[in-house]
């Protein structure tokens, strides 16, 4: 499903984030990426979401190289990916409903379909009844869950999460990880970057440790 072939990434600042990474993920797999900060966890996810391009090597998704994807095809490709950030990047001038509905509106879904799907997503992350709330009135954990709902609502085949539990207390973190497991059980391929070793170990999933590159 996701394949890294001798991927290196060097930023224009000269920082070498990834060096010669080879990695294969099966469809429907759930993996954790761990490693010290600066080991390139975020970069790895960004390469899959095409937020960055590799300096060397290639990333294949479903057998197709992302290097061959032109600029005009990126939006369509990203719609198949749900990306969750440490800071959920919500739009603060819009309600929870409108935030979650954003990917569906981009896809041009009908209003009824959007309503149905957003309700389902809210239900899954346990925020039923909060659709008219604005993000500023939510706690950190709730904001993160809105971010997750937004990433899920379009039923993506790949879910990428970059430190999704970074700011949350352990109990909430555990909750959110279970939400990811549920999505994984529904068939999505899930990649989660996290430096919380305890949490990662408890999840009992395949774990990939990135070593910091000495450049």
């Amino acid at each position, binding site marked *: *499903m996701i394949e890294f072939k001798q991927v290196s990434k060097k930023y224009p600042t000269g920082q070498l984030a990834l060096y010669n990474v080879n990695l294969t993920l*099966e*469809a*429907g797999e759930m993996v954790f990426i761990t490693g010290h900060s600066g080991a390139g966890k975020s970069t790895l996810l960004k390469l899959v*979401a095409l*937020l960055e391009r590799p300096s060397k090597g290639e990333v294949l*998704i*479903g*057998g197709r190289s992302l290097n061959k994807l032109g*600029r*005009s095809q990126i*939006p*369509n*490709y*990203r*719609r*198949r*990916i749900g*990306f969750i950030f440490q800071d959920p*990047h919500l*739009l603060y*001038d819009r309600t929870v409903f409108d935030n979650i509905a*954003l*990917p*569906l*509106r*981009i*896809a*041009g*879904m*009908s*209003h009824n*379909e959007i309503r149905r799907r957003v309700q389902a997503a809210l239900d899954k992350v346990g925020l039923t009844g909060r659709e008219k709330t604005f993000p500023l009135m939510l706690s950190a954990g709730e904001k993160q869950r809105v971010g997750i709902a*937004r*990433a899920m609502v*379009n*039923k*993506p*085949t790949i879910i990428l999460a970059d430190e999704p539990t970074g700011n949350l207390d352990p109990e909430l973190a555990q909750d959110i990880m279970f939400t990811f497991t549920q999505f994984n059980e529904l*068939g999505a391929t899930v990649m989660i970057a996290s430096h919380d070793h305890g949490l990662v170990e408890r999840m009992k999933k395949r774990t990939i440790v990135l070593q910091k590159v000495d450049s």
Partner: protein
Amino acid sequence: MATPVNKKVAPPRNRASGDNPLSAWFNQQSNAFRFSMERLWFNPMSTWITLTAIAIALSLPTSLHLLLKNLQTLTADKREVPTITVFLKQSISEQQAKDLAELMSNQPEIEQLRVFTRDEAMQEFRKITGFGETLDTLTENPLPHTLIITPRLRLLGDMDIDMDAFSNKLKKYPEVDDVQLDVEWILRLRAILSIAERIVLVVSVLLGLTVLLVVGNTIRLDIENRKDEIRVTRLIGATNSYIRRPFLFGGIWFGLFGGILSLVIVHAALLFLIKPVGELASLYGSTFTLSGVDVLMTLQILLASSLLGVIGAWLAVGRYLWRDE
């Protein structure tokens, strides 16, 4: 190994299920339509200021155009028909004059032609001057036959005829002694009005450009305020046209509402002027009334202002998207 993997990816389950591209497009349009309309009133104060600026910029060329149009209808008054007088040679008989008139009247430049015989001329002269007795002493009528020609000449005439060439043509007839043009004043006025028309055009272009810049700048500021939003929507798969769309609608709203407001301003100004203009006209014994903005012109103004708005918005967003990629 890639094959079974492919199968899992292939079903487009992330697509809007059951939505064909056309209805997806329609949904996107209607979303952008609604969203941009709501967005306009997020900050009502700055929106009103922008709309007023656009309205003032638009109402100036509109009122100048109206002024010109009114001047033209005023001078096109039916009582002031311009004429050409053709004096025939003394030796020409009345029958010859009538034949010539018939021959001439086929010419395209001539709207109307009347033979004014020397007897009629004498009677008129007698009436006007009161030299009846003196004139009786003349054995022969010294006045020539004349032809009174009304040329096809309108102030806004599309049949623009060259008066000099026409009068030269008339002079070439052997029967003609002299040609007197009584149309110079109208030609001068036409020249002045055509200069005024150009001025209105220049002013319109400049103020149209102003509208373009005002809308462009407003949209640019709006984009600056919503940079984060644009970044986030990009991350979740928004195309450039999706990002552009609400701003383009925003530009249309600014243009359209600005245009409507400018029409309100122009109408208010007309109402303000109607009474004194009516009084002035009645002093001149004229039934002239101010003509306002008709339906066609209203539509033209609204179309033009919306177009300016959308172009301004397009330029602003285009610049941003181009720079940001």
